[in-house]
């Protein structure tokens, strides 16, 4: 019996030791390049989460000796899962990148991930002094000026850290680093680690210097993505996002979606295999992130790459900021520009995955103007949304949509340019590639009327690229372009059908929102122009309600280009003054909608001195009183609801101008009048900036007394009291509000 117990005990020790020291093979989900487990998931092996058990397990699992220790750097708990991050040390010296993450549930370890460095024996006494090692590092950086040499930066650091001794001057820390970080043999090396920040050229990185021989073992960039300045070919100096890589900057921006990358195709073109081989593409680089004209405006037209990079960034920003879309697929699709495609290639294309830009020839300059870039990326958007078949009418709509996005990106990024000319900067012998505002005047004339002059038969038998441009996709896109122009800006005339049209523009922003919704929600591969009319009307109803001014103008603009009938005039609209002065109080009303339960008004924001836009009363009803604020052209909108459903939307453009000096006429000039609607007695700033006396109630009666106490003017239940005809002098205004309150105000006229 005794012998049996011993045997059992030995057996148990053996079993527990083997379980404790090594996990089952199937619990190791992945290994690193040296065969070391880097992801262990314990489904059967039981190990408790306490420090001793964890450390013992790790040491045995990774065959680490007694000189290795682990320090807990971070411990968290979420949803009953405990996690701790362990930093590996050897004889008290930190091992760079030796980090393990352990997670547990119910105090039992579930996963172990990370890397450890296995060190049998290592001398931890450096041969080099810290200063000598720094000398090697600085020799590698070779900067003109460093952050610690800039007093302003030094002062700011001291201020931010609240430490008088804080400095950017590098302080070496002894660490242990695997010299062969990515190889299959580990080689631990004692090293100095320096954080070196240079400002000319700008860079910041951790430099690892071998503590025995001064070899630079690793440069780990801290300052990775930085803003640079680019002297673009077509858009002047612009700020671009770049990436620091091995001491140089390259045109890679990982701050937008999954990235915007601009490559030099090095004149690659379609090869003898029938394919475009871009494997030889390289980065454009710059040593100080100041991409100057001296460097890049050369015979190769290298500065075209700067336009491509900036333009793609601006296109990304436009869709994110205006349509809440994260790149063309909505999920951060990486946008890749290839510049210098072909030799003297006068073209640009979206190849289904990336953008290709040629350098131009005798007809075209480099094909990287902002609208061309927006156009090509616009094709990528279409591929991810309506995916219009690129031939006949659907292909023409595809082309038109790309021109629209090119124009909107250009307007967003460079509003000083001519929004409605496409490719005006790339043409060497003409002023545009296409004109959206006058399609007939395009480089190759386009129609402005469906079926009108320059219209190509979209039902040609065989859509062929060289015979008919896939049944006229680049020609018939003039219809889409001109429709958008009219919708955004307005215009009148007689189309090729002899029909007179008069369209009131609703502005670029609203027009683009309608197009975006139609394209991303309603258009499909076979959408025709007549479909597009109905679907954009539908989109406008979604956004602005049925019977809105926007809907009317969408249909009206289609009528102008020969599609659909003249729409019936809108029956609902906002009534009220369109010319205002700061501080002027006005009433706006909407003729009532059937079944309306709520009228939500939106007015501008902004002030002129102390006169700010304000809704005094009436929100939620069909009539509001407002006070005008800052000078400029503004929009007052009203969205009409039935419950939670939008059943209408209207807007009115109002123009707030400088008030005339001196007395006014009473009507639009607040200097001469008293608006009693909500108990505000004013004139505006130059008359009396402190005139506001009450709000949100009605006057029952207003009486104006002269300085002798004589009543000179009186009104009851009036919206306005004109004091313009009163002689100059001091007057007392006594107003009785609807709640019985009496207000008095002294004014000087």
């Amino acid at each position, binding site marked *: 019996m005794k012998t049996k117990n011993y045997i059992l005990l030995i057996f148990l020790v053996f079993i527990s030791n083997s379980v404790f020291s090594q996990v089952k093979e199937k619990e190791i989900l992945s290994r690193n390049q040296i065969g070391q487990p880097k992801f262990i998931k314990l489904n059967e092996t039981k190990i408790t989460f306490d420090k001793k058990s964890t450390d013992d397990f790790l040491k045995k699992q990774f065959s680490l000796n007694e000189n290795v220790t682990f320090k807990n750097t971070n411990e968290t708990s979420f949803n009953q899962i405990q996690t701790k991050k362990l930093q590996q040390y050897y004889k008290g010296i930190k091992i760079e990148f030796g980090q393990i993450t352990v997670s547990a549930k119910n105090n039992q370890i579930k996963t172990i991930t990370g890397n450890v460095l296995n060190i049998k024996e290592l001398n931890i006494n450096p041969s080099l002094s810290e200063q000598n090692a720094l000398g090697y590092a600085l020799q590698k950086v070779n900067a003109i000026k460093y952050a610690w040499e800039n007093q302003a930066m030094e002062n700011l650091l001291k201020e931010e850290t609240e430490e008088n001794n804080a400095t950017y001057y590098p302080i070496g820390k002894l660490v242990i680093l695997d010299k062969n970080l990515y190889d299959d043999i580990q080689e631990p090396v004692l090293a100095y680690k320096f954080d070196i920040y240079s400002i000319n050229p700008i860079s910041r990185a951790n430099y690892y210097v071998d503590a025995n021989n001064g070899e630079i073992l690793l440069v780990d960039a801290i300052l990775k993505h930085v803003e640079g300045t680019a002297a673009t070919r077509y858009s002047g100096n612009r700020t671009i996002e770049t990436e620091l890589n091995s001491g140089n900057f390259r045109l890679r921006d990982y701050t937008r979606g999954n990235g915007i990358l601009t490559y030099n195709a090095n004149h690659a073109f379609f090869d003898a295999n029938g394919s475009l081989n871009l494997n030889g593409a390289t980065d454009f680089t710059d040593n100080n992130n100041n991409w100057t004209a001296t460097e890049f405006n050369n015979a190769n037209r290298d500065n075209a790459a700067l336009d491509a990079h900036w333009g793609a960034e601006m296109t990304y920003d436009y869709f994110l900021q205006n349509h809440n879309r994260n790149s063309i697929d909505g999920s951060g699709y990486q946008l890749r520009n290839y510049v210098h495609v072909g030799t003297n290639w*006068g*073209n640009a*294309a979206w190849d289904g995955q990336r953008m290709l830009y040629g350098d131009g020839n005798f007809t075209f300059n480099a094909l990287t103007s902002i609208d061309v870039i927006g156009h090509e990326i616009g094709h990528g958007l279409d591929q991810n949304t309506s995916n219009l078949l690129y031939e006949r009418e659907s*292909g023409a709509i595809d082309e038109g949509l790309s021109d629209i996005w090119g124009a909107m990106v250009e307007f967003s990024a460079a509003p000083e340019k001519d929004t409605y000319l496409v490719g005006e900067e790339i043409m060497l012998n003409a002023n545009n590639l296409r004109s959206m505002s006058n399609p007939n005047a395009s480089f190759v004339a386009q129609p402005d009327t469906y079926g009108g002059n320059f219209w190509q038969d979209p039902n040609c038998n065989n*859509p062929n*690229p060289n015979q008919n441009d896939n049944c006229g996709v680049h020609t018939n896109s003039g219809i889409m372009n001109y429709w958008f122009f009219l919708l955004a800006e307005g215009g009148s005339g007689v189309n090729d059908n002899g029909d007179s049209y008069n369209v009131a523009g609703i502005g670029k922003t609203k027009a683009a929102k309608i197009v975006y919704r139609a394209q991303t929600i309603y258009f499909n591969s076979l959408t025709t122009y007549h479909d597009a009319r109905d679907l954009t009307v539908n989109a406008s109803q979604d956004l602005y309600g049925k019977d809105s001014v926007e809907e009317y103008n969408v249909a009206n603009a289609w009528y102008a280009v020969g599609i659909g009938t003249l729409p019936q005039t809108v029956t609902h609209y906002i009534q009220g003054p369109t010319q205002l002065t700061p501080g002027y109080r006005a009433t706006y009303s909407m003729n009532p909608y059937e079944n309306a339960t709520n009228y939500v008004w939106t007015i501008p924001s902004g002030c002129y001195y102390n006169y700010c836009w304000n809704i005094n009363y009436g929100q939620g009803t069909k009539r509001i009183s407002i006070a005008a604020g800052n000078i400029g052209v503004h929009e007052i909108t009203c969205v009409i609801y039935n419950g939670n459903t939008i059943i209408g939307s209207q807007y009115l453009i109002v123009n707030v101008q400088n008030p005339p000096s001196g007395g006014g006429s009473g009507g639009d000039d607040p200097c001469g009048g008293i608006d009693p609607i909500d108990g505000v007695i004013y004139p505006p700033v130059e008359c009396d900036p402190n005139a506001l006396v009450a709000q949100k109630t009605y006057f029952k009666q207003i009486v104006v007394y002269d300085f002798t106490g004589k009543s000179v003017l009186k009104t009851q239940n009036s919206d306005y009291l004109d004091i313009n005809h009163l002689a100059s002098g001091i007057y007392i205004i006594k107003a009785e509000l609807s709640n019985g309150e009496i207000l008095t105000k002294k004014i000087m006229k």
Partner: protein
Amino acid sequence: MKKLLIVCIFSFLLINCNKDDENSKLPSCVKNFIDETLSNPAGSPRAKVYKYLYQTKIVFVLQYDHSDPISVVYSEDCEVLCDFGGITQENNCEDWQNAEFIENIWVDVR
């Protein structure tokens, strides 16, 4: 009925043999283009191959299947001669207006 079936099978084989035979005569660049196109999802417009007589020589026009598509003109020896299409619709094939269309070689009908 048996005879009819035999005739049908024979005709089918003959047609396919002819097709294979035709395909084997295509330049390698055209065959590669077709293979590469078919190895990817279908694009728009459809990828196509046309045969032309251009400046007294047989050429093949490869139209790629994406927006602003490029059409590249290859010689029978797979030399790139010129191209057209793209956003500018530029055609840098000199005297292309006198090229003579011979036949459609292939269309991606997927």
